[in-house]
Each structure stands twice: as C-alpha cells, then as structure tokens.
C-alpha cells in the first residue's frame, strides 16, 4: 500500500525531515487524505535495530556531519564540531529522546510581556497562547501516551528517582513525581509498557517509548498517501517567478540529484539544518535565503539553560537501571525574578552509562580528581537542569563560507553566547541541585557543564508581525504562502519545558490548518 509519487507530480506536499515535527505532520496530513512525500536524510531503523550501547548507538543514529561553533558557551570548547545531539534517521531525534512531555505554562507564551525588556535579549510573545493550544496538547498527549495525563498512570520510580525524591522532599520541594512521560506505564496504543531497560537515549527496543519512527511514520504509510524517501538529503528549495516554492532538490540514496515538484513545502530538519536549508536556497529573488525578509532566519537560536548535577553516595545507587529521565521537580519552574533571573527551570532525573559519563562528566578533565569520580560510578545519582534561555539575535546559525560538506555546501556554524540570565539561572540551579543531593547524603557533588544541545530551538521563529520573525501562527512563512516550518525552529521562545510535546501539538494543529487551506484552495 506504500505510495509512490512521480517526481513531476506537483500536487504533493513535500516535508523535509521526518522527526517529531515532520514525521507527525506527514502522518496527520496523510490521514486527512493529503498526498505527502517525506524527504529524510537518514536511514530506517526500528526497535530491533537499536543498540543498548552508547557509542555504538550514537554512531548508528546521530547526526555527525561536519559543523562548526563559536561563542562563549562551553560546548564550543568541549565539542567544537559537535554542537548538538540530533538523530539522522527516519523518525529523527524522537528515537533518542527521553520522553519528558510537559505543557508550557501560561506565562511562557507571553515571555516579552511577562519578563519585560531584558537587555541583550530578543524576547517576543508568541502569537498563540495556552487556551489556543489546549485542545492540541490534548491530542498530542493522547498520541504520545503521556503518563499522568488522560487517566494514564505514572511510571514507577527507579533507584535514581528515589534518591532524587528523598533529597527534593528534604529541602522542601513539593511538586515531585516520575513526571509526564511519553513512555507507556501500561500497554497503550498497541505498544507494550516500559521494562526499565535504561537505554532510553539509545532508542527503546521495546517500543514502550513513543517515537515517530514506529508510530506516525508507518501509520502514515499505511494510508497510501505517504511516501518516505530515506537516505535523501535536501540541498535546496526552489521557487518560481511569483515567489512561490515549486519543489525540493535533493540527493537520493545513490547520490544522484533529484527534483521533487510540490504544491507546498514544509521544512522540519531541526533547528540547525532548517535555517541552513532556507539559507542555502538563496536566489536572485531572495538573496538572503528563503523566508528571510525579516533577517531572522537562523537567529534567536536557543538550547535551554542546561547543566547536570551528579552526586556520589557512600552506598550504591545504580542509577542506570530503569527509565533514564522519569523524575521531575516542578517547584522552580515559576517565574520569580527574586531568584536573580527571569523564567524558570525543571529538575529531571538523568543517568548516563559509564562511557558517556567519562565523556561528559567534565569534558577535558583528567587525573585523579576526575577518575576518582568515575570510580564512584556505581554510587552515583544524577539530575538534569532544563530552563528557559533568552533568545538573542546574535545567537545564530550561519553558513560557514570556509568549510564545505561532502556535497559542496557550506556547513552550518552555530554561535552561542550565554546570556547573563542563563548564567544566573544555571548557577542557582547548580546550588539547589547540590543542596538536594547533600540532603540525601551525598559525599561528593559535581556541577556538570552542558552537553551538546539536545533541545535546539528558535531559528525560524513564529511572530505576529512579519518584521519580527519568519513564520506566522501556523508555521507558514510570512514571505512565501506555500512554505511552512514544522519543527522546533518555529519556537518564539523556549519556555522551561522539554520541547517535543509542543512540537508535536503544533504539528497536529498545522496539519489541520494546511489540510483545511488546501481543500479551500487558499494555498
């Protein structure tokens, strides 16, 4: 039943990227009878293929094409050519994601209004709000099977959670649980429940965690309206003299250049490659790249204010056993500038296996201070800080004119400077995280710097006014009516919550909008 569309069929919607945003959009459109071609750079991997081994899984699935970095963020120093942790595969980063699925808080849709004019930040209110998004969040939570929503039970707490919970209660936190997770606590939607395997970051071999790779993508294909072309790398988007996009030029799995015609194109390549594709599509009509009359394409790159706290105890914890991120503290997610920063953050449990711990605990460190920490690995507990960071015009993805990829295209450079608000939040969170573990009996504590970015946001942001951003309230570009953005790059601001639930909710809403507009002949 899998569809096969002609390269010259200009009646199809072409979606570039098949991850949390693109994979969901493709399925939702296909379910509504819209013909879709999905162009995906990566290959197809299913739960049987996933590997319970950190580096082997990373080599199998991660995006390792050349990138460069600049700015004062520590990632540029520790991982100069690996600014992000993103998956290149059908289903995208929803294969490696951990499942934490939280709705934005009301005030986070109105960051500019709530936080005011923060110097050196480019804050803006979203053109949409909680009330508008509520029904779409309901659908997204049902799709992902999010625990503690829709009558679904929470996950049981593992060892890492129990230490985290004990410390949290001891220092007075109250909003503490195993969180809202896109991981089945009981059989749901034809997928089994979590077996506490502990390799959520490497792809769930049981299929207990939601991923577009084995839900939305195959379901879309079953309709006969979706063709997924894996191993196909989009090079540029083309347009006609009227300034409407006409198709996508890509390299197929054999390395041959192809041109798929389209009546509508959606970009869903995650927040580094999406702006890169728009910038690489520059033409004489659009010399600064597509959809870029505002000059905001690639700007306002956000990655959440992150960091980890690991702690060693006098007795074993064995944090690697069980769900990687099923632990949540919400007490710090409010906006309370008396803490010394605007916006808020969550604490979530986090565990790394020994190989990744060696790479990420304190990159570059050596000698006994470092190795004695690893000697305590069995007795270690860990948490992750995820908070709202400030969008800045100067934090941006640009084309690096000096470095070309295998296809001769300039690679993306990712520039990021921590904003003073980000630094104040991180320092405060390190302090509270240390306090928490000390209260649980920790003998040694490690404030661990951010990893390559897993949450990549904001580089084609949504705005009411075309002057301020790249896309409108539906992710439709302000400049080109049949060009859409469908991934986390549309985020106007990052909020404190892990982004995927919101990416999925926006994609479901966008599918509804696109299908409606197409049937009315408006696009």
């Amino acid at each position, binding site marked *: 039943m899998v569809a096969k569309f002609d390269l010259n069929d200009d009646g199809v919607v072409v979606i570039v990227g098949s991850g949390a945003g693109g994979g969901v959009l493709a399925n939702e459109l296909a379910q509504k009878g819209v013909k879709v071609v999905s162009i995906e750079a990566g290959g197809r991997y299913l739960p049987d293929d996933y590997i319970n081994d950190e*580096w082997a899984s990373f080599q199998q699935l991660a995006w390792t094409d050349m990138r460069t970095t600049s700015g004062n963020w520590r990632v540029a120093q520790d991982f100069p050519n690996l600014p992000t942790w993103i998956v290149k595969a059908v289903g995208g980063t929803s294969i490696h994601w951990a499942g934490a699925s939280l709705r934005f808080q009301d005030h986070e849709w109105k960051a500019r209004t709530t936080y005011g004019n923060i110097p050196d930040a480019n804050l803006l209110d979203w053109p949409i709000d909680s009330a508008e998004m509520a029904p779409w969040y309901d659908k997204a939570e049902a799709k992902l099977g999010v625990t503690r929503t829709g009558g679904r039970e929470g996950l049981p707490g*593992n060892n890492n959670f129990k230490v985290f919970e004990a410390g949290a209660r001891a220092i007075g936190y109250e909003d503490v649980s195993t969180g809202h997770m896109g991981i089945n606590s009981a059989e749901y939607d034809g997928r089994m429940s979590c*077996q*506490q395997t502990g*390799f959520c970051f490497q792809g769930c071999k*049981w299929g207990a965690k939601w991923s577009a790779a084995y839900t939305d993508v195959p379901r879309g294909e079953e309709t006969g309206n979706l063709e997924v072309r894996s191993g196909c790398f989009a090079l540029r988007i083309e347009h006609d003299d009227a300034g409407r996009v006409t198709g996508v030029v890509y390299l197929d799995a054999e390395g041959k250049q192809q041109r798929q015609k389209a009546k509508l194109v959606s970009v869903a390549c995650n927040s580094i490659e999406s702006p890169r594709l728009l910038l690489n599509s520059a033409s004489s009509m659009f010399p600064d790249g597509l959809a870029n009359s505002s000059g905001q394409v690639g700007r306002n790159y956000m990655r959440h204010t992150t960091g980890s706290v690991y702690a060693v105890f006098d007795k074993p914890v064995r944090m690697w056993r069980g769900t990687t991120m099923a632990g949540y503290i919400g007490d710090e997610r409010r906006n309370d500038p008396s803490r010394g920063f605007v916006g808020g953050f969550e604490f979530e449990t986090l565990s790394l*296996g020994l190989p990744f711990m060696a*790479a990420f605990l304190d990159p570059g460190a050596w*000698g006994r201070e470092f190795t004695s920490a690893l*000697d305590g690995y069995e007795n270690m507990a860990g948490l992750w800080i995820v908070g709202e960071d400030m969008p800045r015009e100067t934090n941006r993805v640009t084309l690096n004119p000096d470095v070309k990829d295998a296809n001769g295209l300039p690679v993306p450079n990712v520039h990021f400077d921590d904003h003073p608000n980000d630094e104040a939040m991180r320092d405060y969170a390190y302090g509270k995280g240390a306090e928490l573990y000390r209260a649980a009996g920790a003998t040694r504590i490690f404030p661990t710097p951010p990893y390559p970015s897993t949450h990549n946001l904001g580089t084609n942001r949504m705005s009411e006014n075309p002057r301020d951003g790249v896309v409108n309230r539906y992710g439709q570009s302000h400049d080109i009516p049949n060009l859409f953005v469908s991934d986390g790059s549309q985020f106007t601001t990052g909020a404190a919550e892990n982004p995927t639930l919101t990416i999925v909710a926006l994609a479901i809403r966008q599918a509804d909008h696109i299908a409606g507009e197409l049937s009315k002949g408006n696009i």
Partner: protein
Amino acid sequence: MAKDPALRGLTRRALLGRAAMASAALAIGAGFVAAPDAAWALELENIRPETMATLIQMARDIYPHDRVADSFYAVAVKGYDTPEDAPAIEAGIAALNAAAQGAGFDDYLSVGWESDRVAILRTQEASPFFQTIRGGLVTGLYNQKEIWPIFGYQGESYSQGGYLHRGFDDINWL
C-alpha cells in the same frame, strides 16, 4: 587474560628471556612490551617498545584507575602502532622525556611518584599530542566492555528483559 588479538600469546618463557629491560610496570623487549609476569604482551611494528611502555604509563597517569590493569591501557593506545601515527607518537614521547629530564629525572618512566609525573604532564597539557592521547582514551579506555564491571556498570540489559524484575528500584538505604 587479554583476549585482544593484538595482545598475542608469546610464551612466557620466550618473553621473559627476550625482555631487555623491565621497568617497574612493564617488560620491554625487541618488538614488544609485556606485563612483568608475561600475562600479556603487545607486539609492535612501528613504535619502539620503550616508547609504547612510556605511552602506556602516560595513559594510566591521565586516567588512573588502580583497579584497571595495564592491559586495558595497552589496548586503548595500541591503535597508534601504525606507520602513519608512529612518528608523532615518538616525537610526543620524546618531548615528554625531555620535560622529565628538565625536571631532573632520567626519563618519564623513571619518575617514581605519580604526583611528579602528573606535574610533568601538566607542562605538556596544551600540546596537540597530549590532547590527542587524552581524547582518544575517553573512548579507547572507557568503551572497553571488559572494564565496565570494575565500575559496577552492567551495560546492555535488553537481552535480559531490562531491570523491571532485576532491581530497577532495589535501593534499600534511603
């Protein structure tokens, strides 16, 4: 013990007979380094045995784990024994020995205390050689599955059904 093909089974007698010099840590002979008791040996084609013995000591001093045997450090660096890499390794270790001499020792291997060796390493920290060796060890050492049990890490769990019935929440001291 060493299952790695590069750590080959020269016979114990042959090894000890051929060993020209035994430092505190390793036996060094023509074309090989070996454990002093010949439990394992690493045959070399491009790097001088003295150089490899120094490199193994350097690897341990960068990431010292007293419960991790030399053979694992040897496995982590044996990949440099190629015609392409050998010149840079020889030059880097020569610089390290020069730094040791500058600090009043005969060479790096003859420095008795770890703290003195670390002080010498600190002087080399910014060099591309040091950074290459250190960076390579992060995966070369810690990604050897055989050392994981020393740290208590259990690795792959899917084939055993995960930890749902194997102690995901068995902590009992809180």
